[in-house]
């Protein structure tokens, strides 16, 4: 995974609430055995509307998406994160995310930025015509108008994003502790 320290540029000023992963990537795109090329199916149903945001030349290729409450709810499909990544999105700003989606996002180098609704409303306004910056170093979202919103992310996730860490490699290094746990369980809970 590539390290990410900051994401800067235009942002899709979307703001929709309860965007589920069926909307991000419909199920028929899941019949693949690869991680690639998922961007073609991203927001397929939304894109049926000719006036949709994602095909608006002003926002094409934006690295940031601004959404409403409960972004990424529904299915656990990591294909949603792959689809966003494939269309170039590196950060999503919303008042809240589903737990599974935010985990999937981080594992694919996408920053889930949680900000209060008022801050999101302001950013939706600014992003119509101006760029937005998400900075993991300072944990802020800024605009060309001196807006400065501080967000939080748990330190481990932040570290993984900023250093592009391979989580599996890290855990495999804890092999001794895992084996010790397994032997203890064999004693106390043999039915497992």
């Amino acid at each position, binding site marked *: 995974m590539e390290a990410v320290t900051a994401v800067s540029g235009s942002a899709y000023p979307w703001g929709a*609430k*309860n965007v*589920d992963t*069926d*909307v991000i990537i*419909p*199920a*028929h795109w*899941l*019949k*693949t*055995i*690869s*991680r690639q090329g998922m961007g073609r199916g991203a927001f397929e*149903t939304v894109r049926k509307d000719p006036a949709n945001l994602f095909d608006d030349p002003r926002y094409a290729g934006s690295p940031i998406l601004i959404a*409403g*409450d*409960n972004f990424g*709810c*529904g*299915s*656990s*499909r*990591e*294909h949603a*994160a792959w689809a966003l990544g494939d269309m170039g999105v590196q950060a999503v700003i919303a008042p*809240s*995310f*589903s*737990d*599974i989606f935010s*985990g*999937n996002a981080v*594992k*694919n180098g996408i920053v889930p930025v949680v900000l209060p609704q008022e801050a999101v409303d302001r950013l939706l306004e600014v992003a119509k015509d101006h760029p937005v910056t998400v900075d993991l170093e300072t944990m802020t979202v800024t605009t060309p108008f001196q807006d400065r919103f501080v967000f939080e992310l*748990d*330190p*481990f996730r932040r570290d993984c994003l900023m250093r592009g860490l391979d*989580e*599996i490699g890290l*855990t*495999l290094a*804890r092999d001794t*502790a*895992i084996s010790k*746990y*397994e032997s203890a*369980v064999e004693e106390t*809970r*043999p*039915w*497992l």
Partner: protein
Amino acid sequence: MASRPRTLYEKIWDDHVVERRDDGTCLIYIDRHLVHEVTSPQAFEGLRAAGRRVRRPDLTLAVPDHNLPTTPRLDADGRRLPIADPESAQQLAALEANTAEFGIRYIDAVAPEQGIVHVVGPEQGFTLPGTTLVCGDSHTSAHGALGALAFGIGTSEVEHVLATQTLLLQQAKTMEVRVDGTLGFGVYAKDVVLAIIGRIGAAGGTGHVIEYTGDVIRAMSVEGRLTVSNMSIEGGARAGLIAPDETTYAYLRGRPMAPAGEVWDKALAWWRGLPSDPGARYDRTVTLAASDIAPSLTWGTSPEDVVAVTGRVPDPDSFADPAKREAARKSLDYMGLTPGTAMQDVAVEHIFIGSCTNSRIEDLRAAAAVARGRHVASGVRQALVVPGSGLVKRQAEAEGLDRIFTEAGFEWREPGCSMCLAMNPDKVPPGERCASTSNRNFVGRQGPGARTHLVSPASAAAAAIAGRLADVRDYVKEGAEI
């Protein structure tokens, strides 16, 4: 630590901590891992690319369900019929090849035990109280019905569990959802969970693990509990939990993968210590009265859009929150509904009885009790009954339920996810309406442009007979055997 009263969740969490990191994250051991064809190929591919092995193939169980067509799988001579869609066929073949390569137990598409992962796990006794159980599928929350800490994971996490049998997690907050009293006639587990989601909202449980408590949950069968816990994720909670009790133990005893003999007794002694201690504190508690819960259904495109079957399509202007108003307007437009319409005046063209929420034997019995001796209305184009597993199917056939359904004009299918999601040939055509016992009424979930109303199995059967959304209490007599 032992002196502080702990919740069921805290006990399971504490029992599974391999290591606690300085930043508060814990390395948590995973006891059981279920795998299906859709979210696993990229994980196996990742293992292969990195030259990694599966740490504990013995703790993993794989079964195909999402892609599998529900039409017959064998021809008259017992030969396997090919799967028409090449992409589905490829994904199913990949699961078979990957499980063989990595030495994982695999239930074949034509095995009698095949079914939806979340039906198979409990049915086989693979799901046990006090365990951690994961699957690359958000409705893994279902298994919490047996007192397992069970939750859905993404494909990177599937790979992480395969390689290490652990996950790096942060402890969630706890939320108690208590349902007190006794359910009224015609009100089922599905109505209970719809009422809960209607109350807390689709994001209400975010960051929390829900524990369901109260008389109503205690009185429920394991099958009903599975329905409730299954939909925890629709209320935003990654996991739901129900304390194990005598009902749970009676359900598990003798299941093929459950412990037996002396080990059973040891396990039972451990399980009895799991329920939340008196005085244990939850971060939040929500209470519902059973007497307030009617047969329920959804009107919109979020599972929180719940109304009693006797209710009407709401007016978007009636919502205080402007975002909700806007969402409701969009939903009604998609659903083709006019505010103020009585729900029971809404005609349906499709019926789906199935999915990991409602495809177990009790669900089929409840639906059959309504369908018995009646016929599907002429306006209904397709009415599907899809058992959750091969074993459920056999049991239903032994009880003659298949004949009740087919004589009433329903189609009786092979087990799988079917019309719950538009990945296999069972789909609702654009603009058509379905009374469905599944768990998601999202835009396009049952097919592009499909309109979904979530209901209980008995209500789905009533809708099939009426050709409209219907009140099941008009179709079964109180006191009659259901």
